[in-house]
């Protein structure tokens, strides 16, 4: 059985996950430029229930929840993407060097990784965020990205280690290729699927952490995100008031985004590791 055939055999989980995610992505990115509404504008009364004017009601400031939801999803996904890219980049670099080089390089990098793996990232996030008074989307992504690389490094290291003794790498050395060439051509292609999987998970981690930080009051300060929507819903006790439209839409949006990403990741995992599929 070859790789192409395996990938070609359409994986349902991957497909469904990807479709859900792209629908959300397209809606949240295509709508804002055409929208005449400003998500931060207070139009109506506090907690107005859904109506034709406000399809998902209004929030505690009388802002249109639907508009907020779409703009917020865009913000959250953007933060997730940037944070995920940063985390994946750092994690992959550290993981590849630790796993491929071995020896002392590995000892040092692996110790660092393990230390940051047991220190809860949210605590570091809090310490950093408390110190930064105004947090833009970019700052937020940066903070989230540089605190969540460790487990990517760990996963990639394990994969890189298993490659280290493969003979094509010895052959590449015997061809006189440099370390950079070997990593680029002999190591990274084999890790590509794992890196993509790690990236998918990192994007969802970024989105989840943004929301968590926002709910603690440490979210982005100048825009609306799914997290800040939940923050306000929480602060103004919308659940106890019964204003379900203030928290269910952003909560559901986060859940659907992360669910679609987990599903896609699990589908990819099955393509890469056929035994999970339940046939081998």
């Amino acid at each position: 059985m070859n790789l192409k055939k395996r990938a070609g055999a359409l994986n349902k989980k991957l497909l469904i996950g990807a479709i859900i995610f792209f629908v959300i992505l397209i809606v949240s990115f295509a709508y804002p430029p055409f929208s005449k509404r400003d998500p931060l504008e207070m139009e109506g009364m506090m907690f107005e229930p859904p109506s034709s004017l406000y399809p998902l009601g209004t929030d505690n400031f009388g802002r249109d929840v639907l508009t907020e939801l779409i703009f917020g999803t865009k913000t959250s996904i953007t933060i997730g993407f940037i944070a995920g890219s940063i985390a994946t980049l750092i994690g992959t670099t550290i993981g590849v060097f630790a796993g491929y080089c071995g020896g002392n390089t590995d000892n040092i990098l692996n110790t660092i990784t393990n230390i940051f793996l047991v220190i809860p990232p949210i605590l570091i996030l809090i310490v950093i965020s408390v110190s930064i008074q105004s947090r833009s989307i970019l700052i937020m992504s940066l903070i989230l990205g540089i605190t969540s690389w460790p487990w990517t490094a760990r996963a990639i290291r394990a994969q890189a280690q298993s490659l280290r003794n493969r003979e094509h790498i010895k052959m590449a050395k015997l061809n006189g290729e440099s370390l950079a060439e070997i990593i680029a051509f002999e190591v990274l292609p084999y890790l590509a699927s794992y890196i993509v999987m790690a990236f998918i998970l990192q994007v969802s981690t970024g989105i989840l952490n943004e929301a968590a930080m926002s709910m603690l009051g440490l979210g982005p300060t100048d825009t609306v995100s799914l997290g800040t929507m939940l923050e306000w819903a929480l602060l103004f006790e919308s659940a106890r008031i019964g204003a379900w439209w203030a928290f269910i839409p952003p909560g559901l949006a986060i859940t659907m985004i992360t669910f679609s990403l987990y599903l896609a990741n699990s589908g990819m995992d099955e393509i890469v590791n056929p035994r999970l599929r339940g046939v081998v």
Partner: protein
Amino acid sequence: MMLEVKDLSASYVLPEGEIRAVDDVSFSVDEGEILGIAGESGCGKSTLAFSISFLFPPPLRHVGGSVLFNGKDLKNFNDRELRKEILGTKISYVPQSSMNSLNPTRRVKDIAFDIFRAHMDISEKEMYERAKERLDLLSLPESVLNMYSVELSGGMKQRVVIALSTLLGPELLIADEPTSALDVSSQRIVLKELKKLFKDGVFKSMIIISHELIILKHLAHRIAIMYAGELVEVGETERIFKEPLHPYTKALIGSVLEPGKRVEREKIPSLPGAPPDLREKITWCRFYDRCPFADEKCKRKQELVERDGRLVRCERGKDI
């Protein structure tokens, strides 16, 4: 006849298609006999070992044919009965990869107890005594009983596995490449132990599977040669080595290297190509593409027929 395998077929059913790893295989084993099954990687010999004990872990599936053990058709046993009444007690198995065949978190003693408990009701003391005896027979010290798999060397692990597999004195032992992971010195020790257990009557019959024909020559009374899921030749060991009737058997024997018999450097026969893809249905001789003797006539279905007291799947006979 202790074991009779009739027209047995088994396939791996994958989303990409069906791989017929064992195709219409028939043979038998008598009491007191060692049958060797020889073949190269991917020919289906390990799958055959599973199929004989009528366990088909998915995606392996029983496609057709039957296995009769002492006249009883294993098809009539359900999974539970099979394990309770046949496996471990009547038919036992020595796996190929002893490295990973012992549960890493259980002591040898506990694995032995689990095997006893699955089949009989005796006191823990008696279990311990019996396990100790069996280890002793394999020249393993009692202390091994308290060890975990990681504490044993490769050769020791394989002997422990043999001890466990023969714990209940099975009638038939199936040994699947019992030494392929070992160095020559350990290999010889392990095979000697197996032969000793057989002579001592710990088990009555054995099927030993190997890709090394030379090992079978020293152990087996009869040898079955397997190629691409089919048996191509079955006969007494001496006669097969003396005068192979199937061209593949001939190639296998020819490829045996032995120190001291220095062949002219260029004269070891070699086969071109590779065995056919078992996902495809081949209706003619499966060895056709690689056979140095093949001609137009060969491109048709070859049956396993009796010739000179042997079974051969080639109609060309002695002119090869």
